[in-house]
C-alpha cells in the first residue's frame, strides 16, 4: 500500500487503482479490475465537469472494500472546494461502487459527472510480458447498460456496466447530468460485472452487492473469531499477527473446482491462482491456526494430480500441479497452465502436508480419502522424478519453450550455481528436494502403517528413506565447507555454493545428527545471517548480490522453515534468533512481510530494504509470523496432546496463544522470553 496503489480483493477478483479510485492502466502495469487472470477494466476515470479529482484520504475499510474522499480540481489548495466526492467500492462479481457528491455551496450546483470506461481484456501474463492481442473488441450501448466485450473464436469475455441513477451510456463510458441543491447530496451506485463464458463462476454469483459485502464481512469476522488469540507484552507482535490473519483471509480463494471451500492463493497481483508449492507451504505455516486451509489444498491439488505424460505441461502420472490459470493465453495453449506441472517439490510436500495435517487435526477420513493420491505421489518420486537413475529427485523441463528451467522454489534462472558462479547443466538435483523426498517417505510410512494398514508399503518406504539418508549425507556433503551442496549436476558433481537450502534439510530430518551443528553455525554465521534473517545465498559466493532475487535476498517464508528446521534438531536459541530478526523486520512493514528484502547487513542499513517487487501481500510471507509463533512456542502434536516447549527471544516478553485448535479440542500455550538473541544476531 506504500506504492500509492489501493488494492481490494476477493478471491481471484481484485481491483488495483490509484488513491482517487481511478484506473488508467498501461499495457504493462497491473492496475485495473481483474478476475480469473483477465483484466476486465483498464480505464475507469471519474470527472466532474470535465475535471479530474484530487484525493484527500483513502480508507481501506476491509480487504474487499475501500473508500475515497475526493475534491474536484488538481490544485493543491482544497480550501475553496464547494463539492466533496465520496467513492465507496467493494469487490462483488466485479465491483460495486457508490458515488456520493455533496454540495457545500449556498447555491444549487448543476454538474456533469462522467466515468470513462474501457477494457483491454489483457491476460495477466500479457500484462507481465506486454504481448499483443489477437481477438476483436466490442462496445455495446443499451439504454441502461454498457457492455465491453472481447472475442477470439469461441473465447468471450465481457464487462457489463450499469448504474442506479439515470445516465447516458456511450461506447467510452457513462455520463450523469446532476443538479444538487445547496447543502444537498446526490448518489448513484454503479455495478461493474465480469462475465466469463464457460469458465464463469463470477457470472453466476449473486448480483446483490450489499448481500455479497455482508457475507464477506461475516466471513472475515468468523475467520478471525475461529483463529487462536495472541496475548503478549509486545504490541507489535499482536498487530503483526492480526495483519497476517486478515491478509490470509484476503488471499483465500475458492477455485470453481473446490466446491466453495477456500485455499490460499499465492499473492497479489501476479499470483492470485492455485499454486502447488505456495498453497502447500502456506497451509503448513497456518496449520495451528487455520487447519481447514490444508484440507482444501490437499483436495484441490489431489483433484488435479497428473495422470498422463504431457510434455507441454510437464505432466507425469502422480505429479502435483504447479500452477493453474484461467486467462486467454492458457485457453489457447500459448502458455501451459491448464494446469502446468513444472515443479518437483510440490509432490513430496503433498505427502508431508497430508501427514502433518493429520497429526494436528486427527482427520483420518481425509487421509483415507486421499490414499490413492498420496500413493501416486510417492510412486512419482521413484518412477518419474529420478531422471538419472541415481535415487534422487532431478528436474529438467520437457516444455523448452514456456516451461520453467528451475523447478524448485528458487526458480529464477541464476539461482542454482557453483561457488564461482558457474551454472550447472541439466538435469539438476537440488538438495532440499532430497530432504522433502526423505520426509515424504518417512511420513508416508506412518500413514501406510497406521491408517492405510499397509505394513508392507510402510516397511519399504522406511527402508528407502534410510537408504536415501545414508547416500545423501555422503553424496551432497561439501567436505571443505562442512555443509551440504546446493545441488548435484548431471555428472554428479556437487554444486557447492552455500545457501539457505541447508536449513530446509534440517526441517526434513535428512541430516545426520553429527552434521547438524555445523549447519546451524552456517545459518547463523555472518555469511548467511544478515541480522534480520538468513540470506538465500551466502555473502562471498560468486553470484551473491544483496538484491538478487534468489541470490542474496532474505525471504521471510524461507526463514520460517529454517527456524522450524533448527528447532527440529534442538537448536532453540538459533531458531529464536531468526524469529526475532524476521518479526523485527515485520515491524518496518506494518506487520505485512514482503516477499523478500535485501540481504544487506543489518548494521549497514538499519532497516530492511524491500525487494522491488509488486507482489504484496504474498501468502507464504503472510504465513511466516504464524509459523514463527509455532516455532518459538515449540508447539508439536504428540498423539492426542499438544506439546508446548517455548524458547522465546528475550525482547518478546510474555506470549500466550489461546485456543489452539486440533485433535485435542482447543488448548492454550504460554511462553516467556528468555533466549538472549542479541549477541547471536550480530553473528
Amino acid at each position, binding site marked *: 500500500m506504500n506504492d500509492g496503489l489501493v488494492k481490494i480483493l476477493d478471491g481471484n477478483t481484485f481491483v488495483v487503482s490509484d488513491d482517487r479510485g481511478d484506473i488508467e492502466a498501461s499495457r504493462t502495469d497491473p492496475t485495473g479490475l481483474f478476475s480469473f487472470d483477465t483484466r476486465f477494466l483498464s480505464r475507469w476515470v471519474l470527472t466532474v465537469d470535465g475535471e479530474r479529482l484530487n484525493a484527500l484520504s483513502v480508507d481501506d475499510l476491509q480487504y474487499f472494500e475501500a473508500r475515497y474522499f475526493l475534491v474536484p480540481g488538481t490544485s493543491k489548495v482544497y480550501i475553496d472546494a464547494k463539492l466533496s466526492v465520496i467513492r465507496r467500492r467493494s469487490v462483488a462479481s466485479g465491483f460495486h461502487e457508490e458515488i456520493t457528491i455533496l454540495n457545500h455551496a449556498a447555491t444549487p450546483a448543476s454538474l456533469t459527472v462522467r466515468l470513462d470506461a474501457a477494457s483491454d481484456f489483457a491476460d495477466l501474463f500479457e500484462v507481465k510480458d506486454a504481448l499483443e492481442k489477437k481477438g476483436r473488441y466490442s462496445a455495446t450501448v443499451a439504454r441502461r447498460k454498457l457492455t465491453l466485450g472481447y472475442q477470439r*473464436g*469461441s*473465447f*468471450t469475455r465481457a464487462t457489463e456496466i450499469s448504474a442506479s441513477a439515470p445516465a447516458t451510456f456511450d461506447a467510452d463510458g457513462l455520463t450523469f447530468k446532476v443538479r444538487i441543491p445547496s447543502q444537498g447530496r446526490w448518489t448513484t451506485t454503479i455495478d461493474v460485472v465480469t462475465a466469463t*463464458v*464457460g*469458465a464463469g463462476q463470477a457470472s453466476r454469483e449473486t448480483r446483490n452487492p450489499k448481500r455479497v459485502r455482508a457475507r464477506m464481512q461475516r466471513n472475515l469476522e468468523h475467520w478471525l473469531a475461529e483463529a487462536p488469540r495472541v496475548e503478549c507484552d509486545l504490541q507489535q507482535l499482536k498487530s503483526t499477527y492480526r495483519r497476517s490473519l486478515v491478509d490470509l483471509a484476503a488471499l483465500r480463494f475458492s477455485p*470453481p*473446482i*473446490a*466446491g466453495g471451500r477456500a485455499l490460499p492463493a499465492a499473492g497479489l497481483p501476479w499470483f492470485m491462482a492455485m499454486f502447488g508449492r505456495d498453497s502447500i507451504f502456506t497451509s503448513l505455516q497456518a496449520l495451528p491456526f487455520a487447519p481447514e486451509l490444508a484440507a482444501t489444498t490437499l483436495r484441490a491439488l489431489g*483433484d*488435479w494430480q497428473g*495422470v*498422463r*505424460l*504431457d*510434455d*507441454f*505441461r510437464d*505432466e*507425469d502420472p502422480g505429479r502435483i500441479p504447479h500452477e493453474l490459470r*484461467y*486467462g*486467454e493465453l*492458457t*485457453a*489457447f*495453449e500459448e502458455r501451459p497452465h*491448464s*494446469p502446468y506441472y513444472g515443479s518437483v517439490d510440490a509432490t513430496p510436500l503433498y505427502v508431508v502436508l497430508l501427514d502433518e495435517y493429520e497429526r494436528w487435526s486427527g482427520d483420518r477420513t481425509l487421509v483415507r480419502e486421499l490414499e490413492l493420491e498420496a500413493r501416486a505421489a510417492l510412486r512419482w518420486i521413484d*518412477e*518419474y522424478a529420478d*531422471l538419472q537413475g541415481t535415487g534422487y529427485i532431478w528436474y529438467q523441463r*520437457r516444455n523448452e519453450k514456456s516451461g520453467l528451467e528451475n523447478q524448485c522454489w528458487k526458480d529464477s534462472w541464476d539461482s542454482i550455481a557453483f561457488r564461482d558462479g558457474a551454472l550447472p547443466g541439466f538435469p539438476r538435483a537440488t538438495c532440499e528436494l532430497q530432504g522433502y523426498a526423505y520426509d515424504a517417505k518417512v511420513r508416508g510410512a506412518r500413514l501406510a502403517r497406521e491408517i492405510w494398514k499397509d505394513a508392507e508399503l510402510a516397511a519399504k518406504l522406511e527402508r528407502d528413506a534410510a537408504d536415501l539418508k545414508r547416500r545423501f549425507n555422503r553424496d551432497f556433503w561439501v567436505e571443505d565447507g562442512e555443509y551440504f551442496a546446493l545441488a548435484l549436476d548431471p555428472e554428479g558433481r556437487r554444486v557447492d555454493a552455500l545457501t539457505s537450502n541447508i536449513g530446509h534439510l534440517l526441517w526434513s530430518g535428512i541430516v545426520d545428527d553429527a552434521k547438524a551443528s555445523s549447519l546451524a553455525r552456517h545459518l547463523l554465521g555472518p555469511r548467511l545471517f544478515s541480522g534480520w534473517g538468513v540470506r538465500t545465498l551466502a555473502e562471498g559466493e560468486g553470484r551473491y548480490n544483496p538484491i538478487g532475487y534468489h541470490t542474496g535476498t532474505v525471504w521471510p517464508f524461507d526463514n520460517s522453515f529454517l527456524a522450524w528446521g533448527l528447532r527440529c534438531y534442538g537448536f532453540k536459541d538459533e531458531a529464536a534468533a531468526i524469529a526475532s530478526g524476521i518479526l523485527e523486520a515485520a515491524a518496518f512493514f506494518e506487520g505485512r512481510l514482503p516477499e523478500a528484502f535485501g540481504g544487506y547487513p543489518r548494521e549497514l542499513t538499519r532497516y530492511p530494504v524491500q525487494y522491488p517487487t509488486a507482489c504484496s501481500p504474498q501468502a507464504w510471507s503472510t504465513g511466516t509470523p504464524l509459523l514463527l509463533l509455532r516455532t518459538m512456542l515449540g508447539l508439536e502434536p504428540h498423539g492426542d496432546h499438544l506439546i508446548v516447549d517455548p524458547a522465546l527471544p528475550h525482547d518478546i516478553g510474555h506470549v500466550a496463544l489461546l485456543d489452539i485448535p486440533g485433535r485435542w479440542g482447543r488448548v492454550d500455550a504460554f511462553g516467556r522470553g528468555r533466549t538472549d538473541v542479541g549477541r547471536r544476531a550480530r553473528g
Partner: protein
Amino acid sequence: MRFEIVEGRKTRSWCVAVAKGDLTVEHGAGEAHCVVRADRGVFEKLATGRMNAFAAVLRGELTVDGDWRLLVSMQRLFPGPRRAKARA
C-alpha cells in the same frame, strides 16, 4: 455426469454414472450433477488426446454446468498427447 454431444442441430446425450468405482454409461438425458456440452469434433479430440479439456473450457468450446470437480475427475480418463518424449 451428462455429456451433450452436439452434431449440427441434433444433440445426443450420454449419462455416465460412477458408483463406488463402477462406471455405467447410458444413452439418454438423465439427471446429472454435472453437464458438459460441446460439438462432436471437440469430444473426438478430447477422447483421442488431441485436446486438453480444461483449455477447451476456458476457450468456451466445452461448457460445464454443475459440479466442476466431476469434470476434473472425468478428464483424467482422457489420454495424453501422442509421442510424448518422456522417459518411463
